């Protein structure tokens, strides 16, 4: 959006940052991102509430991975047994009981791979450039809230962030 401005709010505590996020929710403003020197539950909950993300999409990838893994495990065990046709102790060539272990492990493996890869994919990782508005102190002792707003709303949002406890609010061109 041309003419937009980014406001970077700096907060001393995660409580204040989460409070500012809630205020944005009521504004209502959705286009923002936060920085935190540690994983803060308070900020995560506030952001989750505002964005109404609900359930993570990662679960669908885990399910697909698990099903794929189980089928792969079954095909691998039964297929190789039939291919080599080895008779072990007079048991059936394709004996399901011991294959359950391999099928189960393959299901877990593919499920985990699905979870990890979808997590990176959905999070947009890896990201080699810092996000706009980033300050090194957001990785040390301060919390950041970056909001992209139209020219007309700048004063309103700046006041809102200061009311929530921002130590400083910096304007940057978006």
């Amino acid at each position: 959006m041309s003419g937009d401005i980014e406001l970077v709010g700096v907060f001393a505590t995660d409580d204040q940052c989460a409070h500012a996020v809630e205020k944005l929710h009521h504004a209502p403003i959705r286009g923002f991102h936060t920085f935190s020197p540690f994983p803060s539950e308070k900020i995560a909950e506030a952001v989750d509430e505002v964005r109404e993300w609900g359930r993570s999409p990662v679960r669908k990838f885990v399910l697909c991975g698990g099903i794929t893994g189980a089928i792969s495990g079954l095909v691998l065990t039964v297929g190789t047994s039939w291919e080599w046709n080895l008779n072990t102790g007079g048991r059936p060539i394709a004996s399901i009981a011991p294959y359950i272990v391999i099928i189960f492990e393959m299901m877990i493996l593919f499920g985990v791979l699905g979870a990890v890869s979808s997590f990176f994919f959905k999070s947009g990782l890896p990201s080699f450039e810092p996000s706009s508005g980033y300050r090194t102190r957001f990785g040390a002792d301060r919390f950041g809230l970056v909001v992209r707003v139209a020219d007309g709303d700048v004063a309103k949002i700046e006041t809102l962030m200061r009311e929530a406890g921002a130590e400083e609010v910096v304007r940057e061109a978006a």
Partner: protein
Amino acid sequence: MRPIREPVQLNWGRLTTIATVLVAVGVAGTGVGLAGGQPQRVWLTWLVDLLFFMGIAQAGVACSAAFYLTQARWAGSVHYRLAESFWRFLPLSLVLFFGVYVGRDYIFPWITHPVANKVKAQWLNAPFLFTRDFLALAFMTLLSWRFVGISRTEEAVIWHHQPDTIEMPPKPIRRLAPVVAISYCIVYTLFAYDLISSLSPQWHSTLFGWWYFATVFWSCVCAMSFTAVRMRAALPVVNMFSRGQVLHDLGKMIFAFSVFWMYLTFAQYIVIWYGDIPTETFFLVGRCWHHPWMLLTWMAPVLIWVTPFSVLMGVKPKKTPKILGTVALLGMIGVWDLNYVLIVPSLSPDKLPLGWIELSITAGFLGAFLFCAVPGLKQLAAVAVSDVDGDE
């Protein structure tokens, strides 16, 4: 300070009457069964029921100990009182254990046909077996009595209601809870070998004892969940069990320990399958693949694992009282069925003796169990109402 606990006015008289009638049915069934020349059916069922109901009562105390060991304070005092509400059946089970002694010739095949293996024969002789098992049972009863007493002290109750602190439980509990948990595992392993596995003295499985006490523990979790659901309906609208979170937690316990049970079951099965040694496989083959036991045998994993796993996977079913209660009830039926299938085919491989004798004796044990549980349930009802008052 917690509010003073007033007894909750429920229709306890009705429950006591039902329990009394069930006991009468059980006494009549036992008497008629013995008089009618069916002593083996009577005493085998007696053993099945004793192990089932005694197991729930004892595992409840072990579950309370586990709560203390994990510092579980997710429902105030309620989950402690819930787990401990059945313990009064333990002193009665000491008395009922004499029934196993009376019927020993019909239960233990090695009494009339001693085993050839000399080492095994030293372990499997009636005086030694009954002495050690009775002493173990008496020890567990005294330990449970002491533990439940300490768990109800004011100091313990105050600790229950401080979930935000990192305080450890009171010192007497810290000392006794590990003893209860470890003793439970040892004694129920002993019972598994002495009172179940020894009925097929040629058979052995090193995992059987562990597997059995895990099964018993799960049956207690089901009994707790079923009781919670019934209490929720019977108590005033606002009580601890009307909170979805409490039912959710109980549902998670059913789900988790059901998966653990299946894990142990499969671990035991796969070793026997791989070894393919006749002295190990005969125990499973007769039960899993031969008529008339096949259906009852496969019913057990369906009720203990398939049903809870498939039904309770989501959050909503765990929080829905009717669903949780039904799964818990089916789970208890599954464990009773499992006990029956473990014990009876060892002496009756070709016949399925399941009729009015078995049902009436089971009804009698159920009545005695309910009778013993009433005082504990009264306390539970009071706590379930007063704790929720204290929280608001």
